[in-house]
């Protein structure tokens, strides 16, 4: 398949891994930021090809995983309101709040619907003037433009029965929080390619300079990731710390300007709590004053809510690269995809779920080559 097969070629993958092996002289720890990259690494076994000097730790870039418990509880609350149609991307439905999840609410009679785009939610609002339609606006800079566009269009049309429950987060502040934390292990980043298609990578330049870490904007296919690792290791070995772009086929330095424009029109930067990590300043998006009447928290008076995480769940450490999923004492015993303690075990992009699915048991690497 065009633009996929070329990036999954086994021989080329081994060549890239060998290239890393040739230039590496000491151990380095790299973090891939995005959950999509984590999933690809574990699914294809990319880390198994790399020399043992390279440690890949998994970053906070799974939108489902970082959405704080109180936002999920708010979603559950508003989905039970009479006359509400609650719309969401599919993988948020399984994430447990304090007591239940949206799939269970749906089974109990709540009108919860999976949509593929916030614009589909807008259409549901147009088609159901007697109902209140709420869209769960989660995700990073990648989903922000479409979510902003939905609000922008709703405002243009004067649609009064549409609102969004916002839990948007931004990548660069999270990377800075990881770099600035005591005991940080991360020496280089593979930045999230899709986020950069929207935002470009100028935001990373001050980070690379301040913390002296290489940041390589990286795609999601095996060869993308291997090339990203090669570029980051090369910089580390040469004592450089620059922002480089591995994903040049999709990312430009300035990103997608019309997309950024609609984000700025509708959203402003706000402090945001990250599940398992805590509040990070300037790390989220909230609706601007002019669009505040589309804020579901205000419309439904959801107000302040504070919920504690289960103490057994160490997903915060996993998302900061301090702990590998299989090093968590609850992994695979108290915490499984059927009974998750934290969102990292729920989402298909969550590091714990990826390890559970593909690495619950160590597999002999030659078992199918008989």
């Amino acid at each position, binding site marked *: *398949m065009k633009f996929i097969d070329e990036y*999954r*070629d*086994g021989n080329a*993958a*081994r060549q890239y891994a060998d290239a890393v092996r040739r230039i590496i002289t000491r151990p380095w720890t790299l973090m891939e930021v995005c959950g*999509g990259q984590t999933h690809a690494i*574990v*699914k*294809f*076994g*990319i880390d*198994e*090809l790399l020399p043992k000097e390279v440690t890949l730790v998994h970053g906070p870039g799974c*939108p*489902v995983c970082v959405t704080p418990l109180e936002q999920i509880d708010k979603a559950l609350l508003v989905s039970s309101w009479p006359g509400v149609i609650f719309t969401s*991307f*599919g*993988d*948020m*439905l*399984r994430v447990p709040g304090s007591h239940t999840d949206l*799939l*269970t609410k*749906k*089974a*109990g009679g709540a009108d919860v619907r*999976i949509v*593929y785009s916030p614009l589909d939610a807008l259409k549901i609002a147009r088609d159901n003037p007697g109902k209140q339609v709420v869209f769960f606006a989660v*995700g*990073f800079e*990648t*989903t922000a433009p479409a979510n902003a566009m939905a609000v922008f269009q709703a405002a243009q049309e004067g649609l009064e029965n549409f609102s969004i429950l916002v839990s948007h987060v931004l990548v660069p502040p999270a990377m800075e929080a990881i770099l600035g934390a005591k005991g940080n292990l991360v020496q280089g980043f593979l930045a999230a390619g*899709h986020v950069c298609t929207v935002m470009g990578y100028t935001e990373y330049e001050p980070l690379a300079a301040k913390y002296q870490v290489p940041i390589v904007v990286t795609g999601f296919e*095996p060869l993308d990731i291997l090339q990203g690792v090669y570029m980051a290791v090369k910089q580390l070995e040469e004592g450089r710390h620059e922002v480089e772009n591995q994903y040049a086929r999709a990312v430009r330095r300035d990103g997608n300007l019309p997309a950024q424009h609609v984000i700025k029109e509708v959203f402003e930067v706000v402090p945001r709590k990250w599940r398992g990590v805590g509040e990070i300043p300037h790390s989220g998006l909230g609706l601007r004053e002019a669009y505040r009447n589309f804020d579901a928290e205000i419309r439904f008076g959801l107000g302040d809510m504070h919920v504690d995480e289960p103490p057994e769940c160490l997903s915060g450490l996993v998302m900061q690269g301090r702990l590998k999923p*299989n*090093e968590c004492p609850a*992994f*695979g*015993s108290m915490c*499984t*995809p*059927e*009974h998750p303690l934290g969102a990292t075990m729920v989402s*298909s*992009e969550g590091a714990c779920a990826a390890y*559970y*699915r*593909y*690495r*619950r*048991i*160590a*597999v*002999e*690497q030659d*078992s*199918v*080559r*008989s």
Partner: protein
Amino acid sequence: MSTPTTPAFSCPVPVSRHEHVLLGHGGGGQMTQLLLEQIFLPAFSNAALDARHDGAALLIGGLRLAFSTDSYVVKPMFFPGGNIGTLAVNGTVNDLAMCGARPQFLSTGFIIEEGLPIETLRQVVASMQLAAAAAGVQLVTGDTKVVDRGKGDGLYVNTAGIGIIEAANPIAPSSVRSGDVILLSGDIGRHGMAVMAAREGLAFESEIESDCAPVAAPVLNLIEAGLDVHCLRDLTRGGLASALVEIAETSRLHLGIEDALIAVREDVRGACEILGLDPLYVANEGRFVVFVPEAEAELALEVLSAHAVSANAMAIGRVTQDPRGLVTLKSLIGVTRIVDRLSGEQLPRIC
């Protein structure tokens, strides 16, 4: 890697955390498995059921019969490549074929929602008749119920069927042996993506049509050719991965497959990539796997490739002893990993 934790066997999860049935309980994954193991199997346990095959193998008056049933609730009722009627006939015909049986007679039950256009019912029934004729079966008994408007999705169809088992040896997961080769009858993922695209109004570059088709003819040919078929399984709900996981668990053997050998049509792969779905778990309605001894694999492929429905059959892996009860997949870049059952349904991801 310091992982080893035993899979769910040693530490059964309680009837999970759910007090009500969720849609995921019907997804063919781990949640469905829990319903089976904790509710149905303990209640009905008997030798035929406990074999956990696509249909029951029964001995009645010296005659070996296969008996199977399935209900169809597909939404939308009509999709590219078929409709609820063709699905209902082919689904049960294929379940019987997976027992090594020649399908003979079907029953059908219609649960119709008040207000369904008679013309729609006529079209569904006409397609059922065509599908039955193509598969060489007769619909010999049936039932009709009408429910209040709003209490059903237009139309639900149930079929049950019986057939005479022609295979000499039992075809079941327990007959799988170390050294067997795993054959896959064609490309995977088409039915699931065709229905999803039609249901959600997703427009892809080309229209994906379902692979819905009867597969009894190639299966019976395998048996007529004297091949020692150890196990057959059609890859419906839960897809190739779920079928193999179940066979690995039941046989307590290791099934090793290779990603590079599994065909997925380009448009299906594209649609799966966009939605974040894994074709290994997407439903098929005309695909099956065959387990045969290695010495017979080549002849089996020859037989399969003579039929349009299995013209592109391929060997995708083999059975070994260890690691017991597991399916592993060699990825495109040559690294081996576990293939697991999904928890509930595959949900499209955020970005």
